[in-house]
């Protein structure tokens, strides 16, 4: 039918514009659901993010691709809108209006949380690898690095010449971490005192996954986003620095 071909080609040619309607619709449904069924207790944005992940699963199962719903041709614009370029641009924009004093006040705790965050996640990942029967330092380090973020995992794995299935596993561990942070942050925020700029910076430093922190804080309190994102953006770089070097050398002491 020609009409549908025209429709499809218009959607594909104007992919980014199509994605505005698509995302607008998800957000609208989510806020409707939030107000109607949870009386706003569960943030509309939290629901929208979960719905997004669900659709990413659907897209991935239909197409077998890596980009979730964006692998469906008429929704390819979602990949651009949700890609690193626009995400980072919007993150920088959230910093407008942030007070320098607040950053300075929590600066030292932020740096401390970065170091502790990277090392803690690495150790947890490494111990998990050992518990599941890995005995060589390269695989243990790579899986540990994956628990840092899904970028640190493959960077470390390729630097150390790890097996490709171990690298895939490290990416999976990092993705799980990122998605869990996205989903669970609004639910635990209250009990861990995540309600001020200082704790948001510490949270960003400990979690580190930029996408996880970005979405998790958006679903909790958008005012906290710039503080968490600020520290989180240093995390992956720090992980890429530490995991294939110092952390690998330490791991090798225990597992020859």
């Amino acid at each position, binding site marked *: 039918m020609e009409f549908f071909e025209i429709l499809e080609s218009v959607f594909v040619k104007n992919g980014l514009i199509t994605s505005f309607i698509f995302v607008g619709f998800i957000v609208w449904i989510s806020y409707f659901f939030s107000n109607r069924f949870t009386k706003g207790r569960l943030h509309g944005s939290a629901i929208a993010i979960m719905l997004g992940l669900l659709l990413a699963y659907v897209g991935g199962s239909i197409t077998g691709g890596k980009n979730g719903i964006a692998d469906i041709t008429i929704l390819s614009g979602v990949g651009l*809108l949700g890609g690193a370029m626009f995400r980072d641009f*919007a993150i*920088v924009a959230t910093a407008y209006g942030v007070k320098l004093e607040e*950053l300075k006040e929590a600066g030292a705790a932020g740096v401390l949380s970065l170091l502790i965050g990277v090392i803690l996640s690495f150790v947890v990942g490494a111990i998990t690898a050992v518990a599941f029967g890995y005995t060589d330092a390269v695989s243990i380090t790579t*899986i540990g690095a994956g628990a840092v973020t899904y970028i640190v995992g493959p960077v470390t794995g390729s630097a150390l010449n790890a097996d490709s299935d171990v690298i895939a596993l490290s*990416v999976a*561990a990092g993705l799980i971490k990122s998605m869990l942070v996205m989903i669970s942050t609004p639910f635990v925020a209250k009990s861990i005192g995540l309600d001020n700029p200082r704790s948001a910076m*510490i949270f960003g430093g*400990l979690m580190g996954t930029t996408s996880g922190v*970005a979405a998790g804080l958006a679903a909790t309190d958008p005012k906290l986003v710039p503080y968490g994102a600020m520290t989180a953006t240093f995390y992956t770089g720090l992980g890429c620095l530490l995991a294939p070097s110092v952390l690998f050398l330490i791991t090798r002491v225990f597992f020859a």
Partner: protein
Amino acid sequence: MVIYGVALLAFCMLLGVILGELLGRLIGIEANIGGIGIAMLLLVLLSGYLKQSFRLGDLSEQGIHFWSAVYIPIVVAMAAKQNVIAALDGGFIALVAGGLSVILSFLLVPLISKVGR
């Protein structure tokens, strides 16, 4: 002019990312170290400075506010393009490694918040 605000934002982002790349090379790794964090600092510093010396008009502020306001939709789009299948393919070991690190990191937030208080 709205574009002044957007241009300032873009300038901060690119300069930050370039500095982050340089910082990575300086240390000897192929990764961007904190480029976006640096960009955020630049925006905070520059917009503060520009406001003092010559007024950053209301209209150019709108250029920045718009991008700040579409942050949540962008994050929703980001969620919708995640590789959920690959995450689940990792099986139990990926779930344990990723899940435990999230739980322990959550627990440390209140502890570190107390440090230096």
